[in-house]
């Protein structure tokens, strides 16, 4: 009798996945080649806006992830504990963010002494995403304790663990992340016996992992051993700028463009549903609808750009609230639990990262760093602030792809030059779409265990 209604929630979330364009989401499958021969798809794909190093295959891999048949062998069972941490340096929690007061991380512990791999999520993401689950399974299967953490740019981290509330500064966020790691590791149950600590980070989390290790190299609090960065950015703001341009090109400027995209998606899904003779809008239907809806490069680009933009909206709102910069919130009268946030969300959907930088991030940091300029803030958010370390310390590794939309040619070349033999560049996967495939997992484990490069190479 209870909760016939509750059942609707997960389906709603799946719709969000389609609508927000992560489509069938990582972990689901790309339609087999045979289906691409159906009449509906026989027209040549329109050349959508390529960005960074992205090509058609890269955009699709970014949305769909590794096909299950290419997935590395994963363990049958991975134990999991959820850890909620109350951190002493947490800033006062705004009323509308009451649910983010504790930092939530996830631990999969071996029952014998083992090295600990800490996995750091990508932009805006929590510590238990699908990508994280794949990495966790691979690492746990290889004998690591695995601790997975949200990105310092995710709402929950900003509220529970940030010392600023204004996310996006590589070094400041790295220090907060490092402090949170210490706090959690110091309070782990005694039965979790850690022999060594390594870091794995993907996307922006890759850059965070490298920065955290470089901080640890001077502070020695954790004695972090090796780091593997997966699809890291080189210049944070250049990468984000590429996603903004992707949004402008694939969706258009402003919230009217988002509304047009929504109307198109709604009509397409409703028409498919009306024609389908189904009794409910369930997961299987949406799998089909997702594939039928996303076809061209432009549509995949729109999906990727919108997913990113929705994460930016969260970070923008929270930054504005903490920084008291007054872009969408009134610093004197912050919103309350009962207030609608729809107008704010709508305003922010239309705003690119450049606006966050100019109206929240830069004002906040320029006020606190008298010597800084906008240019110096941008320059300090590049991986090359630790060039020498990356070049000379043999414990930094990277995995990336030749069609990652967040990099351009010179940035990829810089990574290759700096890390030389300690980077591997795959010819497929786009952004994160190679995570979990046999080669990626085997290489990552070799890097973490110090047996890279393999003697045969």
């Amino acid at each position, binding site marked *: 009798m209870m909760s016939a209604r509750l059942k609707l929630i997960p389906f709603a979330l799946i719709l969000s996945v389609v609508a927000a364009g992560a489509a069938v989401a990582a972990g689901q499958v790309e339609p087999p080649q045979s289906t691409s021969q159906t009449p509906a798809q026989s027209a040549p794909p329109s050349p959508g806006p390529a960005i960074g190093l992205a090509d058609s295959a890269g955009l699709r891999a970014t949305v769909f992830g590794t096909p299950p048949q290419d997935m590395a062998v994963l363990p049958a069972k991975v*134990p999991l504990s959820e850890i909620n941490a*109350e951190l002493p340096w947490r800033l006062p929690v705004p009323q509308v963010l009451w649910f983010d007061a504790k930092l939530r991380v996830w*631990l999969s512990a071996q029952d014998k002494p083992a090295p600990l791999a800490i996995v750091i999520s990508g932009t805006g993401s*929590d510590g238990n995403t699908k990508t994280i689950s794949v990495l966790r399974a691979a690492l746990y299967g290889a004998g690591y304790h695995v601790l997975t953490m949200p990105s310092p740019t995710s*709402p929950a981290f900003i509220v529970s663990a940030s010392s600023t509330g204004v996310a996006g500064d590589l070094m400041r966020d790295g220090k907060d992340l490092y402090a949170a790691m210490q706090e959690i590791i110091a309070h782990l149950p005694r039965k979790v016996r850690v022999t060594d600590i390594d870091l794995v980070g993907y996307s922006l989390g890759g850059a965070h992992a490298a920065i955290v290790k470089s901080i640890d190299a001077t502070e020695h609090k954790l004695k972090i051993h090796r780091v593997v960065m997966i699809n890291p950015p080189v210049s944070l703001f250049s990468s984000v700028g590429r996603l903004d341009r992707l949004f402008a090109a694939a969706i258009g400027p402003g919230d009217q463009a988002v509304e047009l995209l929504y109307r198109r998606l709604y009509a397409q899904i409703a028409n498919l549903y009306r024609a389908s003779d189904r009794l409910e809008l369930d997961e*299987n239907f949406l799998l089909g609808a997702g594939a039928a809806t996303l076809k061209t490069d432009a549509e995949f680009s729109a999906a990727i750009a919108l997913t990113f933009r929705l994460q930016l909206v969260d970070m923008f709102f929270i930054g504005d609230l903490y920084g008291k910069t007054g872009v969408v919130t009134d610093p004197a009268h912050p919103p309350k639990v009962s207030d609608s946030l729809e107008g704010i969300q709508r305003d922010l959907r239309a705003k690119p990262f450049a606006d966050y930088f100019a109206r929240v991030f830069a004002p906040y940091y320029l006020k606190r760093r008298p010597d800084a300029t906008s240019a110096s803030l941008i320059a300090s958010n590049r991986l090359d602030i630790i060039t020498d370390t990356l070049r000379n310390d043999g414990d930094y590794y990277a995995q990336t792809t030749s069609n990652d939309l967040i990099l351009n040619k010179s940035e990829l070349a810089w990574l290759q030059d700096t890390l030389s033999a300690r980077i591997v560049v795959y010819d497929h996967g786009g952004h994160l779409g190679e995570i979990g495939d046999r080669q990626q997992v085997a290489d990552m484990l070799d890097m973490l265990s110090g047996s890279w490069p393999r003697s045969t190479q």
Partner: protein
Amino acid sequence: MRAAVLAALLAALLDGCASQVLSIRTVPDQTPAADNAAAAANAAAFADAVAAESANSSAQEAQDAPPLLTPADAPSMYTYDPWERLNRFTYRFNARFDEAIFLPVADTYRRAPAPIRAGIHNFFGNLAEIDSVINYTLQWRLKYGWRSFTRLAINSTIGIGGLFDVATKLKLPGTPTGFATTLAKWGMHPGPYLVIPLLGPSTLRDGVGFLGDYGAEYGINVAGLYRGNVSWGVGTVNAIDQRANINFRYYSGGSPFEYETIRFLYVRRRLIEDEGLHPKEPVKKTADEVPAGK
């Protein structure tokens, strides 16, 4: 019975240890190998679904194609939510209740042996079939009503009181329906968005539909399960079974806009399902300034 329920809730709450800084809670094991195998198995079904959708739509085009929706027909991005202040408080209450009680209890329940949980799930699914028979009939979709009736008959007998879903194995899968869908079929709009305590997102129409379903169950009172002291136990186990089968966590991504997102998706999903109930009729077109659901 009530005491037993409370004791179970307390036990679940105390499960897991807490230190000053960290609280640690064991959650169900992940099963990556099986998940990936399932994903691989879905690949074929997925391709079939895509092929079926396109075959279906081209066949439909040839015959009496239902009028197509255009982007201009899509409902507003705004949702009709005149009771928003109250709804937001209820949403927060639901999130807190879920975090403190419902979810920990469901996680504990998930550690019970899978065959037992499947039996319980099938049992309640079979009971719900009664309501489906009634409502498919009220919706005058007799084909599905007959299917639900057959399922009920098979599973209640061969399936030993509903513990085994034999009908699905006989290629007779079920799709439950309820009074909310009946009201929709009769032409009622979703109306104001409504967050129901403990149950979650709904609309006025769907809330009334829920009461109708409950009233039917109470009235029929199959095997005396829905009245008196035993109904507490039955209702609680049913609720825990439902929760344990829902992969949703309030605020798992921490987004400040979760209320807006869930409201948007819930109402759009119901509106699309409403369209599907009247596939041959022209699209209900509403003016752009009318919020969705009104």
